[in-house]
Structure formats: C-alpha cells, structure tokens
C-alpha cells in the first residue's frame, strides 16, 4: 500500500497528466470560441513529431519545443480555415486531421529515420536531480520546462478568459456568434486567434510526451486527445476543472501502471489497462448533462 501513496506515485501522476492537461486546455480554448475540436489527438502527434525531428537534427530541445508549437499552431489554424472559411463539418475536419497527422508522422518516420515504428532516441530536457528516490523524481517532473509552460497555460487561461478583452470576445464568439458579430466582433478572426492559442498549448503536450519517452513513436498520442475532451466535458468547459480532471486521470493511469505487475499474476492481466477508460466512461455517464457547454458551439455567425 505504501507504494501507492508515495512521492513516486505523485511524481508519476503529475508527469502522466501533463499531455492530457495541455490537450484539455487546448480543447477549452477551441470550444469556448465555438469551434468543435476533436483533432487534438492529431495536434499532439504533430507536436511530438516536430519536436523530436528538430531536437534530433539540431540537438536543441528548446528549438524542438518551438518547432512543436509552430506545428501545433499550423495544424490548428488548418482546422479553423476548414471549419470557418470552407465551412466543412468540424467533426469531419477533426477526424481528417487525426488521420492525416497519424499518417504523415508515420511517413515522416520512414522518410527521416527509415523506421516504421519509432525515431532514434533524443535527450529532451535533462534538468533536476538524478536518482531514483521519490523526491528527486518529483523534482525532475516539476522543473521540466514543458511542465512549467503547461502550468502557466493552466493558470493564465481562466485569467485571460475572464479579465481581458480578447477573452471576452472569445467567449462571445462561442456563446452567441450571431449577436457577437452584430456588435462588430469578427467571429472568424477571433476563432482563428483562439485556435492558434489552442494549437500552441496542445503541441506543448505533444512535446512533453515525446521528451518524456526520449523518442517519437508511431501513434504515441494513444487516444489522449479524446480523453482530454472528456476532461473538458467533465470540467464544464472551465480550464481549472478540466486540468483537475486530467490530474485525476493521470493518477488513475499511474495506479494502473503500479498495479500492472500484480495484475499480470492474476486473472485480471491486461484488463487492468482498461481501468482509466472505464473510469472516464463512468464519470461521463454520471456527470451533469451538458453543463457549461458554449451555446454557440459549432454554430456560425452567418449561414
């Protein structure tokens, strides 16, 4: 039992929660502006791949992070152009982005590293104390620059949404695009701006995922973008609640990993891996219905 309530577990939970949290905050930005965004999965992948490709080529993890953010913004803006300018259904665009990111990163692996499964290993940021004690693990997680960026995003998002002109406009575009447009807010521009923020934050999560594994693996996002969306729904489209939901999810996954060895020896076996997803389904099923969803989600100012 002591292995479950420990600093190691806390470190693991926080570390695992980072990509989920970034994607969830990204989801809050996109959806609060009124754009349905199920392409977070693809942006995580694009961010992870770009960070590894650039970090591997230049040897600089910081440049890799910048590349990830640029890729995230580009993909997210692509989604915005497809849904707001070309006006195709946001779900279709999101599915296409996920498939496109999965396929292009696989093609990139073949093209750059002649591998169908993973990239060569990279260093990532190696900061903080070495050692295997719970405390040093926790410190390593906490001083990671990507983690710090994620924390800033979590803290800044509610503040910007509530207290700035930009945040107000984003919420107006998401709640009632027709009314917002009638008072002179450019809905398309606001949504594209919100999506840029969203893409940048989501790509942070991708970079964290890749730096954490010290390489890129084909399909390494593994459904995290969708779980983040579940966190957005459970958190009522509020950044802090969504981040909290992601932390709980990280703890569940850490618990699952800790119990894996025990489970392998019993009849439960691989079934333990379903634990976090079953828990998410239950929370979704019993959360209050559609509380906090932006009224204008998926709606446009003009036909």
């Amino acid at each position: 039992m002591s292995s479950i309530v420990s600093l190691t577990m806390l470190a693991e939970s926080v570390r695992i929660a980072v990509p989920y949290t970034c994607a969830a905050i990204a989801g809050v930005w996109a959806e609060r502006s009124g754009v349905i965004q199920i392409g977070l999965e693809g942006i995580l992948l694009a961010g992870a791949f770009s960070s590894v490709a650039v970090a591997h080529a230049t040897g600089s993890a910081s440049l890799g992070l910048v590349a990830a953010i640029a890729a995230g913004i580009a993909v997210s803006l692509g989604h915005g152009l497809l849904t707001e300018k070309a006006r195709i259904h946001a779900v279709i665009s999101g599915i296409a982005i996920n498939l496109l990111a999965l396929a292009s990163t696989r093609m990139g692996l073949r093209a750059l590293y002649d591998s169908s499964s993973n990239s060569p290993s990279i260093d990532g940021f190696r900061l903080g104390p070495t050692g295997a004690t719970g405390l040093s693990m926790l410190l390593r997680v906490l001083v990671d620059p990507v983690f710090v960026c994620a924390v800033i995003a979590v803290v800044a998002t509610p503040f910007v949404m509530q207290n700035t002109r930009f945040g107000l406009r984003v919420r107006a575009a998401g709640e009632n695009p027709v009314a917002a447009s009638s008072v002179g807010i450019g809905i398309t521009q606001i949504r594209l701006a919100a999506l840029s923020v969203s893409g940048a934050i989501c790509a942070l999560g991708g970079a964290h995922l890749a730096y954490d594994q010290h390489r890129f693996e084909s399909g390494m996002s593994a459904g995290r973008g969708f779980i983040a969306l579940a966190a957005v729904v459970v958190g009522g489209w509020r950044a802090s609640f969504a981040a909290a939901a992601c932390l709980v999810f990280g703890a569940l996954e850490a618990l699952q990993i800790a119990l894996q060895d025990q489970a392998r020896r019993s009849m439960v076996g691989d079934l333990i891996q379903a634990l976090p997803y079953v828990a998410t389904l239950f929370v979704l099923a019993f959360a209050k219905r559609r509380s906090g969803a932006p009224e204008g989600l998926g709606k446009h100012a003009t036909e």
Partner: protein
Amino acid sequence: MKSAHDIRAALPIVLAIAGGVLLFDLMAFGFGQAPASALRMAFDGTWGTAYGIGQVLFKATPLLFTGLAFEVALRAGLFNIGAEGQLALASLVGAVVASKLPPSLPAVVALPIVLCVAAATGAAVAFVPAILRVRRGVHEIITAIMVNRIVDAILPWALATVLGSTSLRTADIAPGAALPRLERVFPALTGSAASFAFPLAVVSVFVVIELLRRSRVGREIRWVGLRAEACRAEGIAVEQRLLLAMLLSGAVAALAVSSTALGYKGYYELGLGAGAGWSGIAVAMLGRGSAMGIVLAAVFLGTLEQAGLAVNARVPKEAMDVLEAALIVLVAVATRAAAKEEAANKRDDEPFEEKPARAAATEEVAR
C-alpha cells in the same frame, strides 16, 4: 435532369481522384522517384494484373462494411468512430464461436450463426456510446474512443488469459464457417485473398441503403438526422431511432469479419482488420450516401492500399494513408462548395431553399 444530377454527384469523387493522383505524384517526387514510373508501378500492382485486381477487391471488402457502417450512423446525424473496436471485438467473438462449431456443420447453418454472433457483438459494443448519447447526452465521439481503448485492453486479455493462447490468436474456425476464395469461380484471381465476402459486402451495401431509403424506419432515421426537434414535435421516437441507427452501424461494421477471419485467415489474431474502421470514414465521405458511391469509394481506397504495398520499396506505403486523409478534406470541401453554389442558384427563384425538404418530411410524417 436526372443524368445531370448524377454527373453533379459524381463530380467531387472525380475531382478527388484527380487530386489524389496529383498528390501522389508530388509525394513520389518528394521521395526522389519519377512520378510517372511510380504511378506505373502502382497501376501494375493493382489493376494491371488479375492477381492485383483480386487483391484490390480483398482490400476493399472490409472497407465496404465499415464505410456502410459510418454512413448508417451519419444518416441519423451520429458519428460512429468506434467501428475499430466494434469490428475487433466482433471478430474475436465470431472467430471463437466459429472455432467451437462442429466441423461437419454445413455452411448454410454455420455461416449465418457466426455472422449473427459477430453482428450482435458489434451492436453490443456500439450500444455503450449509443445509450450514453441518448440517455446522458454525452457525445458519441468521446465515448466511442473510450470503448475502443477498452476493447484494446480486452483483446489481449481474452486471447492470452482466457483462451490461453501464447501466439495471441484463436483456434482455427470450422470449415463450414469459412467463406471460399473467389479464385474457385474465377481461376484468374489465383493467389489473391479475395473471397466471397466481397459480393456479400456489395449486396449488403445496396440492401441496407435501399432499406434506409424505402422503409419507414429508415426514412425516420434520416429525418431525425436532419431535424431532430421537428421529428420530436411530429411524435417520432427520436431516441429510439438514434439508438437503432447506432446499433445497426455497429452490426454492419462487425460483418467485416467475413473478409478477414472467415474469408482470409481462418482464425482471428490480434490486429487482424485493424485500420478498416478509420478507412471506412473516408469511404463514407467519398461515397456521399449512395450505394454505388460507397462501392466505388471502397474499391478506390482498396486500390490505394494495394498500390501502397506495390510501391512500398520506393515510396513508403504510409503515403497512401496521407492521401486517404487528404481526400476526406478535399471531398468535404468540394461537396460543401457545390452545395453552396447550388443554394445560391436556387435562391434566385426561390427564397426559402430549405422549405421543400422540410415540407416533404412533415407531409410524410403526417400521413
């Protein structure tokens, strides 16, 4: 008038194919290959030989089922992106049942049993996102992905821990449950894995699309997809129709097991048929709701998959997956642009463009 409409309907797919060829050329060029020779290689490996054609049909078969599955749910306005998990679990359960059947059981009995079991399993998997959507208002996309991940955990557990297989596969299926290869009737296809699952899939597409169009329930599913509130006001049980569409979608996706475990391998192994669920979305988008469209789109994407294998030594086969995803976007944009133009033309002589469809719908319901 009718033929002009048909040409209009075919235009996006023609544009998509042209755009696809162009993109492929660009990618081949990017990998340092002469586009013309890469294209030639892709053609030779697919429609150039009888074996290639057989392989294209083999690759197209699961896509026919999963494409139809996505279309069925889409009619009700639902996005069934859980076909991956529905098909996987149904394949496992179907193959296990097929392996337990007595070897002497004739195909007329064995096949329907296995297909029904698989379809029921697929529907059961689809039931989870369906009921959560209908009862709790949770979007089916999120829940379907959760269910996919749960199925991903169940499969190795069931194979290794429950069935005790070290190689993560089921026992061989009974001979009666196997679908014969097409080469038995068309000797030219010798060596290709195309089976009678292909004609079964094509028939399924036409039957299900016709049923949706002609039956009362099928039309109601469509209206629910178009205007749920109006349907509720007219006394249609909206929730029931949504549930039905999703269950039907899961069952149809599950039938793709006919082309993998039953028509090809003779058993189920972990990962068999993976990816068909995602490609089915592209098929449905390209097919644009007509049975013929879905068949053509599935054969086209089957061609892409097989062509990917043919050129893999020179251009990575992953390039074909990039193409497939790009095609979804291209077709969606082309379709949307065409619809916009049509609406603009109509607006000139008719102020309320949506009125006829709605009036027709309510009239039908009133009857």
